[in-house]
Every structure is written in structure tokens, then in C-alpha cells.
């Protein structure tokens, strides 16, 4: 009983904490200085139409590297915790039809995923979204029980190497003294082209691969695949 009252009070307290934010909320009318710099910089300096992408990949590239690392850690952590001892798989009996269609579907999904992350600098979406799409392809594969074994090892390599390559690109920036994770190691190209915006598409692709493989790993581990 007392606990309930305390819970209630603490919830009221939380509401009180956020209340001033609501009552005194002023919707902003204009971009602040930093955002303005980003929008301008993205267009003029980095040649990246999708400003969010340039922020993610370039301006806040370290965050993204960290984010990929967090996901990687989750993968490793989940694997470490579950140790894959559990032998049971999710038992969904796959019909032949499902198997066949799913293989085709998986291939299509993969292509979609790759499209999303390679076009991250041009259109909405990017490495993360693309990666998830790829992972969902693998999820489908997992559920329909197609070629699961073969993929696992490849996943591992893709995961490790894409991460390594990501770091490698960052270091290249350092070596070329344009700065860690700078996209300027590659030429800018034409604004709006697929191969433009410096190394942004490359980085985002690597992020896509990395995220895709990481998420797949998580799914595989959680799903009970050995």
C-alpha cells in the first residue's frame, strides 16, 4: 500500500519535472547556428543532399562509430550471455513453397537493403535502415530455415571486416591529415550523384553491412540458432 502511494507520488513528481517543459514550450521558428552550419556545410562542403546523413556520417561520425560499437557489443554480449548452448530452434515447419519464395524474397530484400544504404546520402535512410532491411532478410531466412549454417560464418567475417574497414577509413583520414573519419579522403563528386559526397556513401555502406550483420547475429543468437 505504502509502496503504491510512493509510486504514485513519484509519478506525479516525474510529471512535475517535465511540466515546465510543456507549459513553457516554445516551438522554434528558425534553425540555430549549428544546424544552419550543418545544412549549409552538408550542401556546399560535403555535397550531401541528405543533411541527416552528413550529420550522422561526418559531423557526428564518432557517434556513429560508437553506435555501431554499441550494437556490436550487444551482439557480443547477447552471444556471451546465451552462449548458444540452447539447441532448440524456432520450429516452424517450412513448406517447399515457402522455402522457394523466401529465397527469392530474401534476395530481393537484400538488394533493397543495399540500395538503401548506398543511397543514404541522397534519400532518406542509410546504413542503419539498410542494415535492418538486410537483417530482416536473414530473419526471413532463419524463419524459413534456409541455408542458415552457411551464412553464419560469413556473417561473422562481414561483421568484423566491415567494422575494421570503417575504422580503417577513419584512420585514413588521420593519415591524410584531413581528420579522423573525415569523408574528404575521397573526391566530392557531383552533387546528387551516387558516387559523390566523398567517402560518405562508402562509410554508410560499411555501416549498413556492419549493422546488418550485427542485427542478424543478434537475431540468430536470440532465435536459438547455434
Amino acid at each position, binding site marked *: 500500500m505504502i509502496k503504491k502511494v510512493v509510486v504514485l507520488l513519484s509519478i506525479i513528481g516525474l510529471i512535475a519535472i517535465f511540466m515546465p517543459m510543456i507549459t513553457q514550450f516554445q516551438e522554434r521558428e528558425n534553425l540555430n547556428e549549428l544546424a544552419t552550419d550543418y545544412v549549409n556545410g552538408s550542401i556546399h562542403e560535403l555535397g550531401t543532399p*541528405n543533411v*541527416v*546523413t552528413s550529420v550522422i556520417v561526418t559531423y557526428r561520425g564518432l557517434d556513429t562509430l560508437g553506435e555501431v560499437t554499441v550494437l556490436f557489443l550487444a551482439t557480443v554480449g547477447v552471444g556471451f550471455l546465451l552462449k548458444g548452448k*540452447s539447441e*532448440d530452434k*524456432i520450429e516452424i515447419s517450412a513448406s517447399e513453397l515457402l522455402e522457394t519464395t523466401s529465397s527469392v524474397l530474401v534476395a530481393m530484400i537484400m538488394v533493397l537493403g543495399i540500395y*538503401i544504404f548506398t543511397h543514404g546520402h541522397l534519400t*532518406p*535512410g*542509410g546504413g*542503419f*535502415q539498410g542494415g*535492418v*532491411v538486410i*537483417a*530482416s532478410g536473414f*530473419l526471413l531466412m532463419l524463419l524459413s530455415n534456409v541455408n542458415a549454417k552457411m551464412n553464419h560464418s560469413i556473417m561473422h567475417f562481414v561483421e568484423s571486416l566491415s567494422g575494421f574497414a570503417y575504422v580503417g577509413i577513419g584512420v585514413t583520414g588521420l593519415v591524410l591529415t584531413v581528420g579522423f573519419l573525415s569523408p574528404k579522403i575521397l573526391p566530392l563528386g557531383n552533387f546528387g550523384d551516387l558516387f559523390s559526397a566523398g567517402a560518405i556513401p562508402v562509410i554508410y555502406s560499411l555501416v549498413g553491412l556492419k549493422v546488418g550483420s550485427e*542485427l542478424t547475429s*543478434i*537475431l540468430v543468437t*536470440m*532465435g*536459438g540458432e547455434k
Partner: protein
Amino acid sequence: MIPGIIIGLGVIMIAAAFAAIYFKSLLASIIAAGVISLLASVIYLILGSPDVAMTEASIGSGLTTVIFLFALHRVRKGKSDD
């Protein structure tokens, strides 16, 4: 127009949130939580953040739900072992 949509979505989301809390079935709770995320992505779209919307839709409502379901499955599996 837009505020109307948002309020509508908001009401559904909050309802889903309570549903997620109070549903007896964990499966239903997980689905309800997934619905929240899905609707959130619509809100992001309205708020001019298609990138976020895509991410939320795929990760928040998609993958997260799947992982929840996997975990639930594992737990259920363990339960039937006893």
C-alpha cells in the same frame, strides 16, 4: 488536420501503452508495444524526419518486437521443460 492526426495517433499510442502494461498475455503486450513504435514512426514522418521514421519502423517496431518474441519463445520453451 495534422494536429488532428497527431492527437488521434497519440490517443491510440497511449491506449496501446496501457494495453501493453495490462494485457495478461505477454505476447499481446509485446505486440502492443510494437504498435506504439509503428505509430511513432508515422509521427516522425509528420515531424519531418523520414530517416527517423524509417529507423523506428524497422528497428523499433520490427526488430525489437522480433527480439521480444524470440525471448518470450525461449522463456516459454524453458517453462515447458519443467
